[in-house]
């Protein structure tokens, strides 16, 4: 049973968040271990598994970006999140620009957080954050709509576009974190934003 099926939903990216939450609460009331404490051990084990699956399904589907990531895994027949910790490679389209940013970063590191480049780095970061929002809006909006409308033969191409957009987003976010650290705002390697 995939996560869409857990909620009795078709495999579509467009879904009503409020309705999803209502269903999640309703299903939780049925499957949460709290309500099965007196059940025999085998049933408790089954309830635990069902409940864990429901929670994972809700987490994967409630956020439009996580939903796209899950859809890709599903379409590609992967069921684990292997490679989640790998640092994303720079998408070719961003290479030149990122090279420039890396240079600015090196300079900033050499000069310390209070070096003259601080303002410029902050502006850069704002710019990159805006780009991330743009990529996310495109993923959650037009691309998701396109997927739900696409004929089966058009889907491979859309999947590739999803993956491009996600790779760009992942990379931009890594650079944003790096900029944060160069600006002295990092929390000693705390990966606050990287893995969601």
């Amino acid at each position, binding site marked *: 049973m995939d996560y869409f099926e857990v909620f009795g939903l078709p495999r579509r990216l467009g879904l009503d968040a409020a309705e999803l939450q209502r269903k999640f609460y309703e299903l939780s009331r049925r499957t949460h271990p709290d309500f099965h404490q007196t059940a025999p051990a085998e049933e408790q084990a089954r309830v*635990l598994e069902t409940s864990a699956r429901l929670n994972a399904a809700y987490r994967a589907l409630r956020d439009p970006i996580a939903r796209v990531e899950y859809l890709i895994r599903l379409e590609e027949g992967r069921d684990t999140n292997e490679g989640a910790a790998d640092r994303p490679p720079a998408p070719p389209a961003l290479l030149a620009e990122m090279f420039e940013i890396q240079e600015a970063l090196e300079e900033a590191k050499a000069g310390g957080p209070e070096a003259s480049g601080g303002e410029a780095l902050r502006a850069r970061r704002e710019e990159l954050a805006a780009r991330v929002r743009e990529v996310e809006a495109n993923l959650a909006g037009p691309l998701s709509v396109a997927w739900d409308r696409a004929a089966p033969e058009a889907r491979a191409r859309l999947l590739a576009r999803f993956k491009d957009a996600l790779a760009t987003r992942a990379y931009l976010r890594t650079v944003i974190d790096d900029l944060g650290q160069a600006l002295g705002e990092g929390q000693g390697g705390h990966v606050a934003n990287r893995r969601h």
Partner: protein
Amino acid sequence: MSRIVGIDLGTTNSLVAYVDATTGLPRVIPDREGQALLPSVVAFMPDGVLVGAAAKRQLVRRPETTVYSVKRLMGRGYEDVKDELCYFPFKVRPGDGVVRIRVGAREVTPPEVSAIVLKSLKERAEAHFGEPVEKAVVTVPAYFNDSQRQATKDAGRIAGLDVVRIVNEPTAASLAYGLQRRREGLIAVYDLGGGTFDISILRVKDGVFEVLATNGNTRLGGDDFDRAIVIWLLDDILATHGVYLGRDQEAMQELRLAAEAAKIRLSTEDRTALTLPFDAFTYHRELTRADVEALIDKLVESTLAPCRMALADAGLAPADMDEVVLVGGSTRVPLVRRRVEALFGKAPHSQLNPDEVVALGAAVQAQILAGGITDMLLLDVTPLSLGIETLGGIVSVLIPRNTTVPTSAREMFTTSVDGQTVVDMHVVQGERELAKDCRSLARFELRGVDPMPAGMPKIEVTFLIDANGILQVTAKELRTDKVAAIEVKPTYGLSEADVGRMVEDSFTYAEADVEARLLIEARNEADTVITHVERALRQGGELVSAAERERIRVALEALRQTRGAADRQRIHEQTTALNRATEHLAEVMMDAALKGALGSRRATEIIAGGAERGDSPASPEAS
């Protein structure tokens, strides 16, 4: 289903509560004297163990063997705690996974100490119901990691309690509030206790309490406020009396208790005075609320970053909160309230007693588990990301923080050498990129893998975090569908065998009857009073007449004689008599100390302002 009680196992105080069948409301069970709070203090005496208020009275007399704030040591390794050990008068040394506390001739682990507190609450509940109590919901700070939760469960087992659920403290509090008045919306629960800090962001809707995010610091609480004050007092004593008391454990405990009491008074008053008679001198100091606020400002400030991170993880802004609830005794500090209000832009409230609300919530959760409440459901999260160490020491996150529990993740493993039959995994918890910066939970060894060429075996490992926030790991070889044997080596924690032995051991002293314990208590109280009177006579004997001195000496000698006898009633009477005989001396001494310290100001004014030792230096309560 048998009865389940709710227990708040706190750093400073612990409580037990249950849901009253007739009213449907949770109630705290008081002890025989009507006290709801059981101080989480255990004193190891030559002739037995004291717990609660009786143990607390031993803090100054027997600092080396009286254990307090043990929650800060639960589930931790020596490396984690060595920085703060200088503040504890008892000796803590590294053990195999868990730290060990030396108390006289024996050594105990933190779960064993907590078990003594739990056992006392269990007995209190049993006395209340007139029947055995074997199951409990026990609360822990939301930000407790797997080892700390496991240690709490172990403590329950050692106490003879089946801990049917570990519940997060802020979430428990929200349940108590939820039962009180059915309101819906977004709630921030700010929980600052004696030793730990939590912030939880919840959405309450249709009876479902869904935790959206949690954050915190399991080493930040009222204890740290007290330490900041004590450090300042040490400097001040050095400056005014030329004595450094930092290495005198008894004096340090007196200072700690005085600092705590002054902090508490300053929550309602603008200024207070503390007077501490030491052997060589009497220290007197006036403190204002502003003085103490300056000392704890940084600590209070440091609770705000976790609040912001929890909000960010929930995708919400401070202003989105419909309600901000304060939990934990340390939220009585006005500075804390001001800071929380400034952050959220909304006045926080604490309509339910912040000391009791967590226990009440635990009782509500117990009632849900027992099937007595069916319209409320708690959906909590795991506070820390769970991952495994991969090549190069990098963490691969399997379950991100703030994932609703129960939750599971699967990961495929294989071999890297031909014919390899054992596969190792290192599981960690935390938010850092490198495994060495995260919290090591356990090393798992998958054994009995069929010998195959490297990379051929496909072992599917399932990591499941249950509703307690505790990890369970299972593995399966996919080709053969064979369940793989896993050997778990918890990095911090007791082995199954350890716990089993401790369960056995606990019975040996748990059966000591009530009468014996009361006798020990009476003797200890007598000892405390004797010590105080001896000191008072030495320091201020010449302030009263020879006849009065003689009367005191007679009463003192009488108590010394009776102390060794097994007559609790007589010991108690003579302790009271000695106390009464020294009342006047105590007054005269206090007056002299205040005059010396304050010059022209009237001593009675200061006493009215709530002097720490205002009652009588000979009273056992004053220690």
